[in-house]
């Protein structure tokens, strides 16, 4: 057992503090705007911390570590594409500034303002299901990480997952965005310290020369050149670059942090500051994965190699700190995601189906109940679902299912006057088709004809989703301008 008494004490202190702070802050929730967007009073540094904490979770460390173990230094290119995406948004305010000016609380609200209530409903459904599917593997990855680093057997995976989930649900459900932001900040500080601890001990135990030699020996040129690496290539890199610029601001858990900011300028700057950290927060766990290759060789399970390395090189005492940091990272991600998806269901899906406005108290109650249901779903899904690709690619493809259509609807809606309701429907539906086909077909790939196999190439499928969404919007709008004239919006501030 690597995890000693002192580690347990540190970990329990952190968990206790998180629950206490999360529940204490719930007394500040005064109304729906307070619950969903923290009263729109968040400033730059706090907003940046909460945005970064939302984007980093154990699942992020796991899939980045896994891809580092499998592809060597080549995967560092993803840090560069992500950095470019965030910096472009942070400098130009692409999409995010306009949405913040419109004072929406969720992305699908924009669909109703610009297109119709029906588009909001369909957009909300696609966003909700893609988002919850995307979140489906988080717990499983977290469980593997914790059992590998702490030295437990896989039998304790389920109880570990349930305890973590219960803590997050308790403060997210009760405190809403205020609790999420305050706990995010605490978690941001602790996770940064955890990352620093892990990186220092990896560097102390694994020689840089040995890491470089392992990559060259096991992977050759593919380990340092992402363009010839079969996991990446030009298609994947272009998809990631386009995706980073077009959709980084469109993901509800991320966008909600900008919606909570005190003005559109602050909302834009959050992306600039979060962008400055992006290459580092991608490359650090990737580096742990590459170091695991040098330390253990290429024969371990790629998913387990990185956590096994951390569990081996980080000594007792520091291990408790590191695990607290990793749990902090995950809890901030869960809370933000649960709040984001439950707010979409409570505000964008259920009211249009019921054909009535539910009022503030009922909306908040509905959101709380849905948060609990999401927690139950990801627990069950995380235990049985078999990944069809690497975890990184699963996250990317489920993200594309929603974000391709959202890109079509929002970017074209904001910057192209001819975008109309027909184009919006076409974009949402076509954007989800290719990723959905990938997820279904990859489960039955042995029985599908050879000529459909291109659809189970995750890179082709992801790239295709953006292409189809854009085509759907352009063709749908241009062919129906007379019958469905576009609606134009005036910003509120």
């Amino acid at each position, binding site marked *: 057992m690597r995890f000693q008494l002192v580690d347990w004490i540190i970990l329990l202190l952190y968990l206790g503090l998180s629950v206490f702070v999360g529940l204490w802050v719930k007394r500040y929730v005064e109304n729906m705007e307070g619950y969903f967007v923290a009263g729109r009073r968040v400033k730059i540094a706090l907003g940046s911390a909460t945005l970064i904490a939302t984007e980093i979770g154990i699942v992020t460390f796991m899939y980045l570590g896994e891809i580092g173990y499998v592809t060597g230094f080549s995967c560092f290119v993803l840090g560069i594409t992500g950095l470019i995406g965030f910096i472009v948004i942070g400098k130009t305010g692409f999409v995010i500034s306009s949405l913040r000016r419109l004072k929406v609380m969720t992305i699908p609200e924009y669909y109703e303002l610009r297109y119709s209530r029906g588009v909001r409903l369909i957009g909300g459904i696609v966003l909700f299901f893609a988002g919850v599917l995307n979140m489906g593997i988080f717990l499983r990855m977290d469980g593997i990480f914790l059992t590998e680093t702490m030295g437990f057997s896989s039998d304790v995976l389920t109880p570990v997952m349930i305890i973590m989930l219960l803590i997050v649900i308790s403060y997210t459900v009760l405190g809403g965005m205020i609790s999420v932001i305050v706990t995010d900040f605490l978690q941001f500080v602790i996770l940064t310290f955890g990352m620093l601890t892990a990186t220092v001990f990896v560097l102390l135990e694994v020689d840089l020369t040995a890491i470089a030699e392992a990559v060259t020996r096991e992977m050759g040129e593919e380990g340092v050149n992402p363009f010839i690496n079969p996991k990446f290539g030009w298609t994947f890199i272009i998809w990631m670059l386009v995706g980073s610029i077009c959709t980084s601001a469109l993901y509800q858990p991320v966008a909600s942090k900008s919606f909570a900011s005190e003005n559109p300028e602050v909302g834009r700057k959050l992306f600039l500051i979060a962008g400055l*950290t992006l290459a580092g927060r991608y490359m650090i766990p990737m*580096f742990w994965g590459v170091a695991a290759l040098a330390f253990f060789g290429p024969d371990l399970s790629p998913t387990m190699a990185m956590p096994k390395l951390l569990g081996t090189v980080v000594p007792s005492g520091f291990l408790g700190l590191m695990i607290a940091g990793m749990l902090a990272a995950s809890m901030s991600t869960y809370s933000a995601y649960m709040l984001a998806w439950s707010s979409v269901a409570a505000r964008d899906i259920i009211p249009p189906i019921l054909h009535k406005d539910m009022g503030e108290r009922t909306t908040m109650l509905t959101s709380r109940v849905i948060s609990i249901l999401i927690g139950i779903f990801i627990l069950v899904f995380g235990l049985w679902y078999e990944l069809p690709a690497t975890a990184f690619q699963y996250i990317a493809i489920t993200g594309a299912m929603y974000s391709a259509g959202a890109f079509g609807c929002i970017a074209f809606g904001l910057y192209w006057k001819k975008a109309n309701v027909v184009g919006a429907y076409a974009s949402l539906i076509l954007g989800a088709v290719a990723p959905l086909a990938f997820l279904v077909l990859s489960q039955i790939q042995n029985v599908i004809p050879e000529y459909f196999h291109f659809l189970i190439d995750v890179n082709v499928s992801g790239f295709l989703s953006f292409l189809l969404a854009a085509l759907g919007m352009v063709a749908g709008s241009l062919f129906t301008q007379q019958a469905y004239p576009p609606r134009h919006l005036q910003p509120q501030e």
Partner: protein
Amino acid sequence: MTSATIFWLVLFGLSAVLFFVTAAIITVVGVRDLKDLLRKTEVTK
């Protein structure tokens, strides 16, 4: 070490330093923002 591995390791080093330095600044300034947020938000219960 080849020039390609040196390139990636240097890039990793710069990115990691930028991350930790930015995080340290955000932490210090963020405490002030957090106090400000809670001061402006009324306690309801």
